[in-house]
């Protein structure tokens, strides 16, 4: 099936194991973000797919063609890929149009030039065709790099932190433009980033690469955010409020309310992680945990509010919470403020057995005759 198929790829530099049996299928036309912390092996995986690094273990196919396994290594130029790497800059001594035609060496000159101009048109850069890279802004260079990567009509596009060199203002716009150009091109794209927000914005599908060099979870951005299956994945998206509790009658009680623990045995010790937007504040509320507001920090659209729970029976390490709330919130110091938990933003992980998931059951009807 068309796309990128990675099967059981492991990689080590010397004694350091970087990738640990990574497998994935990225169908043609999909934009997948590989999200993981710095050092988790993202660049290594892209370099292996591109053929810039020799595969040590596993198999890689592009559009059903084996490009690397134990016996063979198709060089990068034979893989039909487009690359946009962090350190893969434009050629400074070539003009913009020459940069874009560079990968079209098989074609007659005027045809290549016409095609390159079309590509520059797609990214809104035709006016700069005869300029040299140093005359362009970072964002403009990025657009040209995208045109250059797409010009040979690759089977697969590999982007390594493509926006990390741009300042914040520029980044949003270039992200959006890049996304629409990629959608229009219909090419299978793997984009690597360590920035969760960037992955959420760009991707139809996110894969999380953990520190152990294996894929921890994949799914729609919504699914990754609201149904993280590992503590590691839940914590990727920033601040978290952490509580420890024990499952009782299908619930865990934490200082700001009760959270359902579907599929977990009574008596199991668990960790409850609550996103800052999962702590709801109420003025003069009858229920909820009483608190003091410690400080507020305006972050554009939202406020991050630091609060301290005041009830006597709250453990010291569970007293201080982060709350995300609409920017119009102003704590009214005269009023009693309380906090409640919003279950959608609360995640439960067993404390014994790391990386465990709730073992919700399905009708299991093992059939001994499964073997042929």
């Amino acid at each position, binding site marked *: 099936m068309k796309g990128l198929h990675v099967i059981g790829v492991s990689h080590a530099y010397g004694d350091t194991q970087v990738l640990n049996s990574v497998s994935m299928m990225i169908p043609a036309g999909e934009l997948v973000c590989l999200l993981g912390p710095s050092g988790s092996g993202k660049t290594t995986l892209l370099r292996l797919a591109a053929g810039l690094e020799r595969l040590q273990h596993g198999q890689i196919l592009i559009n059903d063609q084996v490009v690397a396994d134990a016996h063979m290594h198709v060089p990068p130029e034979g893989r039909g890929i487009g690359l946009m790497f962090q350190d893969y800059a434009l050629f400074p001594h070539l003009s913009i149009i020459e940069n874009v035609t560079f990968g079209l060496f098989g074609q007659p000159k005027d045809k290549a030039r016409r095609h390159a101009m079309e590509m520059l048109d797609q990214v809104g850069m035709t006016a700069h065709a005869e300029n040299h890279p140093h005359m362009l802004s970072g964002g403009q260079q990025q657009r040209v790099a995208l045109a250059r990567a797409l010009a040979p009509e690759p089977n697969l596009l590999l982007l390594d932190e493509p926006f990390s060199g741009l300042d914040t203002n520029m980044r949003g716009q270039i992200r959006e433009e890049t996304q629409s150009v990629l959608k229009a091109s219909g090419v299978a794209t793997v984009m690597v980033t360590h920035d969760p927000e960037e992955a959420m914005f760009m991707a139809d599908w996110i894969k999380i690469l953990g520190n152990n060099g294996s894929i921890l979870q994949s799914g729609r951005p919504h*699914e990754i955010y609201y149904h993280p299956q590992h503590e590691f994945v839940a914590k990727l998206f920033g601040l978290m409020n952490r509580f420890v509790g024990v499952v009782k009658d299908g619930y865990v009680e934490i200082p700001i309310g009760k959270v359902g623990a579907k599929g977990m045995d009574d008596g199991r010790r668990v960790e409850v992680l609550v996103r800052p937007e999962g702590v709801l504040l109420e003025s003069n509320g009858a229920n909820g945990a009483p608190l003091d507001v410690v400080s507020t920090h305006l972050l554009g659209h939202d406020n991050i509010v630091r609060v301290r729970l005041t009830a006597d029976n709250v453990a010291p390490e569970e007293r201080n919470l982060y709350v995300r709330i609409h920017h119009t919130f102003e704590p009214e110091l005269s009023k009693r403020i309380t906090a409640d938990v919003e279950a959608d933003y609360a995640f439960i992980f067993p404390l014994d057995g790391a990386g465990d998931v709730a073992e919700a059951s399905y009708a299991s*009807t093992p059939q001994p005759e499964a073997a042929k």
Partner: protein
Amino acid sequence: MVELTPSFLMDYESLDKEHQALADIVNLVVEAIDGDDAGKCKTLLPEFVKAAKRHFANEEALLVKIGYPNVKKHQKHHRSLNTKMDHMIEFANMAGENQLARDSLRRELVFFLMDDIITTDMDFKAFIEEKAKTGEA
């Protein structure tokens, strides 16, 4: 459309058959969506989920039988797919009326089969091959 080209085959008959049966349902869903007949998804998805769960149970029984050392991990992986199946049922129920539900369902289903289900199974392909040689699988 999904297609089980060679890199998606386990080279083990019963598993490949069941994967193919799942692929057939996925393709019916894709056809229904493309053919302006997305209302059908409402009945196709429960069928898919049922077949997927039966497949997981069969596969786990096989792995236990042949003594695959990482069987617990793979069982856990299968269980972790429950949320996705719940969501796909929801998308399928809305697919008749809603473009976003159709797009999400199609994407999710293709990734689900080709990536979550089959590609992850490749972890034990070599183990089954070894066992088959000695007649244990």
